[in-house]
């Protein structure tokens, strides 16, 4: 029973981190119809920014988190301006290849600057976030509890932003029909930049929450979580933010339970992709996705 509860807690925690990253994928895909392959690497770079801030510059953690979020947002927006904007009229494959190129560049850049060896994350200097909590027989770090709560609050805030505000309305318009909304006077570039601001900001926050219990960052640390988060986004229905949350929770829980079982533990990464194939075959639009008509 205790292990079951422990698994539930860990699964919810990792799942909500996946959800935070998946929101970045799902929003960018909703507006640009682009799988931002570099998103996982932006997440990884955020981990390194935290190390620079805390270990090299000795900035206290609460200020570091703000700096890291701002730096990651700048990185994400710059990538959009440099690598995706010039290709806006190009075929979709070109822009996807550009995203893969950016991912390759970021991984090589991280290897060059920080070396391929894992760097230790300053998890023990994170104040109350890394303090131990014991509940009955379950003991874990406080951050494991905070993560799901924080994620759900952020998702609610984001949904309100998209439903109620002007920029949110613009985002919905752009994701429905790119060209028409442009003709209606929506400033496309501002909307896309804003999407990348939200996506990168959430990725930065996710990176802080992800790396505290894991304690080390390496150049390829973002690639597999990135893929899984995209799977989570597809699972919930691409373009849907509550869908990304549900998808993230499902992927995180199933992965944690598989990892916890004795016989299947080494296949914990396989389960994600099996889930993806099943969902794509049964309901290709995901749990909350809208039906897309194929146009000739």
């Amino acid at each position, binding site marked *: 029973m205790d292990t079951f509860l422990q698994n539930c807690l860990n699964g919810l925690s990792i799942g909500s981190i996946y959800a935070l990253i998946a929101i970045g994928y799902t929003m960018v895909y909703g507006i640009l119809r682009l799988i931002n392959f570099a998103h996982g690497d932006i997440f990884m770079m955020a981990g390194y920014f935290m190390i620079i801030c805390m270990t090299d510059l000795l900035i206290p953690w609460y200020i570091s988190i703000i700096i890291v979020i701002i730096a990651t947002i700048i990185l994400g927006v710059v990538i959009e301006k440099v690598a995706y904007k*010039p290709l806006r009229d190009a075929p979709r494959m070109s822009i996807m*290849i550009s995203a893969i190129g950016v991912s*390759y*560049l970021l991984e*090589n850049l991280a290897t060059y600057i920080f*070396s391929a060896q894992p760097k230790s994350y300053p998890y023990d200097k994170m104040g109350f976030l890394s303090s131990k909590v014991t509940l009955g027989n379950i003991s874990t770090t406080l951050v494991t509890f905070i993560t799901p709560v924080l994620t759900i609050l952020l998702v609610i805030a984001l949904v309100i932003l998209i439903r109620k505000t002007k920029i949110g309305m613009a985002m919905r318009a752009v994701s429905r029909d790119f060209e028409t909304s442009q003709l209606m006077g929506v400033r496309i570039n501002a909307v896309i930049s804003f999407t990348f601001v939200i996506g990168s900001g959430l990725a930065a926050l996710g990176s802080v929450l992800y790396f505290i219990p894991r304690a080390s960052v390496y150049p390829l640390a973002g690639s597999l979580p990135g893929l899984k988060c995209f799977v989570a986004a597809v699972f919930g229905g691409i373009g849907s933010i509550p869908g990304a949350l549900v998808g993230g929770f499902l992927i995180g829980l199933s992965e944690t339970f598989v990892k916890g079982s004795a016989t299947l533990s080494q296949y914990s*990464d396989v389960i994600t992709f099996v889930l993806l*194939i099943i969902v794509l075959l049964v309901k290709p639009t995901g749990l909350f996705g809208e039906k897309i008509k194929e146009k000739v």
Partner: protein
Amino acid sequence: MTKTAKRNCSIIGLAAIAAIIVCVGQFAPKSGSQWANLRTVLQLGTIYALVAVSMNLCNGFTGLFSLGQAGFMTLGAYTYAILTIPVASRAGVYYLYGVAGWLSNIVLPIPVALLAAGLMAALLAALIGAPVLKLKSDYLAIATLGFAEVVRIVIASSPLNRITNGSLGLTKIPGFSSYYGIFIVAVICIAVVVLLINSSYGRAFKAIRDDEVAAEAMGINLAHHKQMSFIISSFFAGIGGALMAMYMGAVSSTTFTIAVTYFILLIVVIGGMGSVTGSIISSLLVIAAREWWLRPLDQTQYIGTHQVPLLKAGFRMVVFSVILMIVVLFFRKGIMGDKEFNWDDVAKFFRAIGRFFKRLFTGQLFKKKSKTPEAGGDAK
């Protein structure tokens, strides 16, 4: 250019390439000089050319954005290695887990093992093709990428320890005794792909790429042709993986990661989606750049007593990926676009250069707008 002139040019060109390979094979030292690099570049470049052509068949000619290449290469490499490691060295290779009983005495000749490697990859492609190929572009990319990861994880998992040696990987993989073996295999494989592309199947592939609905209306069986392109592409990726295992002499589950797939995709893009010659030229250029021309960037160097900034291990790959990004952003069609190598274009290119120099020397360069086509072939 007349037809005979073109044919003569092609014959001379191919003979020259063969002569270069033979010269390097016969006379270049095995290590220690710049010429040794040329040896590596030719061999590795040829292997990558095969893999790039196989990826191009699926992505460039059929328009299926598949990113599973690394998975099929892993499978091919492992199949080849398991079937060819000499019995005498097996105990040493499988020192930790021991080798499975039924496997301990199976050793196949190299060509048969290569074929088996391709067939294993094709078999997996046939199994996953039916569900996966129903998906559309980006979803297909993610699903194949996921499958490649699944292959890697399953191969390294403990129930297969006595077959694949788990996470330790396999070593002492034998190769051709001759330097030319890899070239012969690669040339045969690429020739088969070219024949396929020029056949009616190839035209059907291109029709699917250009417009699925129209192709279906013309009576092309979409599922059948997509499946076929995917399986054949995986077959040659498997052989490419086997050649790579042969070249390196060792393989493990971390040899062919997602980064390898990305790298091959970038080669294909630089060469031009939908051009076999483009893939071949670009893989030789890209490998030469990565393994040879950009090498000095990885070593700290001094001008006098002053250390050149930035140069340290890893800088080469940064410069390399920046170059890749520039090609992807500004020369979107790559070297060849979707055209094949053609003497007319070469003649046109040299004439354009000639005109440029003529204007340069007569001082008329800035008088009217230069119409010199880009070397990247971006002008169309």
